[in-house]
């Protein structure tokens, strides 16, 4: 071995293959200053890759990290990054598959709300980096022929996202991300879907009014106002069109509208 006449060629394939597999041998041809194999030196690269990606996930998912604790989170993150390394050098786009990974991670089966907390945190990041746009002027709606308002379709703001959940996602985020000092009470029997918007610089998260999640989801899908209101009404007797509509407009979830046909 030490009498190698021709130096080993180390391809990027060998190098890359060993980076994410801690059980893999150090690639041939990688040496220290004495020309000998140097696994501890190679491990600096392994460590840089895995630790930096786990840190990136921790920054995207601070509430999940708080809920799991640092040690457990890092173990889950390590399992994720080694199986799902980034597919782009733009790291602000990395980590969207983490919620699905948690969902299929057997040891976390007993904590299904973690999946929705992760989905909400991913949505928060999407709102943060989304294209800028001015929210819709509510007067546009008032300017429509009252007979035709129901036919109008609202245009979704690029930074508006709805996260439907059967868990108290907003309270979980408040307790574990936004107000960790405040001892926010979390009642796991509550269902909280959340509307995430960024009308200008700050990402906002709010609970829609009763029936509002169905209403907003239908509007995001392109249904006209009357159709969306009908869906919400049929699923929620408490649905109030005026409350939900004014909330939608003040949240900055829409940029404009398309009037119905004349």
């Amino acid at each position, binding site marked *: 071995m030490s009498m190698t006449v021709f130096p080993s060629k180390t391809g990027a394939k060998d190098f890359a293959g060993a980076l994410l597999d801690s059980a893999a041998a150090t690639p041939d041809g990688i040496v220290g*200053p004495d020309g000998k194999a140097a696994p501890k*030196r190679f491990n*600096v690269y392994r460590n840089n890759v895995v630790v930096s990606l786990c840190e990136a996930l921790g920054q995207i998912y601070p509430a999940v990290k708080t809920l799991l604790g640092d040690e457990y989170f890092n173990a889950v993150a390590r399992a994720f990054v080694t199986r799902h390394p980034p597919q782009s050098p733009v790291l*602000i786009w990395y980590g969207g598959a983490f919620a699905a990974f948690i969902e299929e991670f057997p040891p976390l089966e007993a904590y299904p709300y973690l999946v929705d907390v992760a989905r909400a945190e991913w949505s928060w990041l999407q709102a*943060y980096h989304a294209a800028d746009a001015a929210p819709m002027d509510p007067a546009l709606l008032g300017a429509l022929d009252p007979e035709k308002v129901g036919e109008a379709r609202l245009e979704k703001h690029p930074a508006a996202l709805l996260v439907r959940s059967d868990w108290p996602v907003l309270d979980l985020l408040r307790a574990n991300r936004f107000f960790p000092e405040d001892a926010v009470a979390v009642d796991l029997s509550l269902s909280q879907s959340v509307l995430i918007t960024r009308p200008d610089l700050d990402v906002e998260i709010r609970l829609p009014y009763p029936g509002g999640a169905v209403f907003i989801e239908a509007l995001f899908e392109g249904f006209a106002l009357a159709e969306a209101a009908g869906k919400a009404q049929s699923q929620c007797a408490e649905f109030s069109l005026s409350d939900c509509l004014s909330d939608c407009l003040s949240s900055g979830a829409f940029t404009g509208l398309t009037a119905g046909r004349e």
Partner: protein
Amino acid sequence: MLGETSSPKSDRIGSAIPARAGAGLKPEHVAEILRTEADIGFFEVHAENYMGAGGPPHRQLEAIRDRYPVSLHGVGLSIGGEQPLDKEHLQRLAALNRRYEPGLFSEHLAWSTHDTSYYNDLLPVPYDRTTLERVCDHIDEVQETVGRRMLLENPSTYVAFEQSTMSEIEFIKEIARRTGCGLLLDINNVYVSCTNHQHSPEDYLAAFPMTDVGEIHLGGHAPDTDDAGRPLLIDAHDRAVDDAVWRLYESVVSNHGALPTLVEWDNDIPAWQVLRAEAEAADLILSRAEETVLWRVV
């Protein structure tokens, strides 16, 4: 002329990076920098952090760019990779160059993508003929696509390749000669790599093609040891610049004159005042070098 940018937007200040100290821009420092109107030569940003569609990152960078020259530093192009460059990524870099009109644009002598995976680290390349050809082709492609001269940064490395047939300096010199690219001399990387491979950093710097250098980087490193208990320095950017690196820097600027100098601090990010003090320390060394040069002229 390569390096020139089109007409400046709005009432932005000019693009040119002065021969002064700059600081790596961190989002948590921006409000204070703007409020205190910090007297800093320039700010450098990692290109990949500004590839989102909108939101606070772009708003902050626009505000900084209106008041300061900015340099754009790519960390993910994988110029040393075995496969062709990512064309979409190259277009994103070109778009950022057009949007922010950075005075300098740099990337690394390293790779980070293989097949479809991105490894988020600056991985080392063997110094042999095959790699040299490939790196030169990639740099030609970058300079053609982005439409300007780029600077290539010397790496921090922890391992060597048995297959290498050239020294790092011979390799870098040949790249600059063939492609016409400029060089970004990272003096912390010089100190880290020379310590790790048991070379003299003074000899390395004496042999470095200084006429091609357009920018200097300084940053902090973390000490460790290798398999045989020898010192192994990690390019961690998580602390102040080491005294040994300051001494090398002083000797470089006193021998070659003032150059734009960036202080990098990317992990365990300190208060703005701490990073600003590091930049001021570099500025002091640069101003002394200027005085020395003036005195020689007189």
